């Protein structure tokens, strides 16, 4: 595969190294001259100095024959412009972008960016999981807008302890899909009884997160 990478700070640098190690052809386009010099010293002639949203630069990088363009600068809108230019002007079949503004994810998908990686979300999820007690963990954003998979740990003194799932009032668009008990995971049948310290895996929407959490953990 020939992969063009726009932007070579943290993410771009490590992506370039990983792809080179896997035997792919890589070209990195980076705006800063001093950064380019450093990269050239370490990675060799896979670095092109220039603006990754400038057609002339993309052309000289041979983006027309790229299989993938990955826009990984720290600026969301620049990544979008690079991806749209690659797709429209150079017919790159697959474009990828990182974003920091969480709400841009659906916009980028809608505008034809094939892979969108939300770095803010990744960092928050990782850090959230490291906090003891772990009240509610975001596991996954589903394909449906604003819909996500979360995990809630049931406190031992919660009102739902000892109740069957079918008896618990949840918000209209939220439902339990799996209950992880001490020894095994169980499908969320309506007669399954919740116990303290169970991990409940549920589907919810952004607006209902808080009320779902309250319903499952309230005392």
């Amino acid at each position, binding site marked *: 595969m020939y992969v063009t990478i726009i932007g070579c700070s943290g993410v771009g640098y490590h992506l370039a190294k990983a792809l080179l190690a896997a035997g792919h052809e890589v070209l990195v386009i980076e705006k800063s001259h001093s950064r380019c010099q450093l990269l050239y010293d370490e990675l060799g002639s896979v670095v092109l100095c220039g603006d990754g949203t400038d057609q002339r630069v993309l052309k000289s990088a041979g983006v027309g024959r790229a299989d993938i363009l990955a826009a990984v600068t720290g600026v969301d*809108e620049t990544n979008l*412009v690079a991806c749209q230019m690659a797709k429209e002007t150079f017919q790159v079949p697959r474009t990828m972008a990182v974003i920091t*503004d969480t*709400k*841009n994810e659906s916009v980028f998908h809608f505008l034809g960016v094939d892979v969108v990686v939300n770095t803010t979300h990744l960092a928050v999820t990782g850090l959230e999981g490291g906090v003891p007690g772990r009240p509610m963990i975001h596991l996954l954003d589903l394909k449906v807008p604003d819909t996500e998979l979360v995990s809630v740990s049931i406190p031992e003194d919660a009102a739902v302890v000892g109740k069957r799932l079918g008896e618990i009032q949840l918000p209209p668009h939220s439902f339990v899909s799996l209950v992880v008990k001490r020894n095994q995971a169980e499908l969320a049948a309506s007669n399954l009884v919740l116990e303290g310290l169970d991990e409940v895996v549920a589907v919810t929407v952004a607006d209902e997160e808080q009320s779902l959490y309250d319903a499952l953990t309230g005392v």
Partner: protein
Amino acid sequence: MIFGCGTLTDLLVPYLRQAGHLVTVLADDADALERLRREYQVQGVWITEPLMQDYLQEGEIETAEVFLAISDRDHQNALVAQIAKHIFNVGTVICRLENPQLQQLYTGLGLKVIGTSTSGLYAETRQLIEG
């Protein structure tokens, strides 16, 4: 609704207000926003974080009939104009782009684009040089 508060916004706001239109301006320049608020009673939304859709909703974009992305930053204008057009379905969206490559790209992608015509400037400059 206007994104950006440079010279073009300064020219447009008095005209729009005089014609009786309601105007909301989104910008990161707090002083300029405050001045527009004071002098022309526009609604101002001060942008401090990269959370564009939140600011658009704060300015009640769903009620906007016209959206002008006319800051002096091409990339931001391109993003915010596409959000206004495709996510919030604003009827008329106009996007200012100064880079001729981007003017061409986004015209092709269906945006109404305004911006300085470089070919016009080129012809004019040559004419002046050659007398």
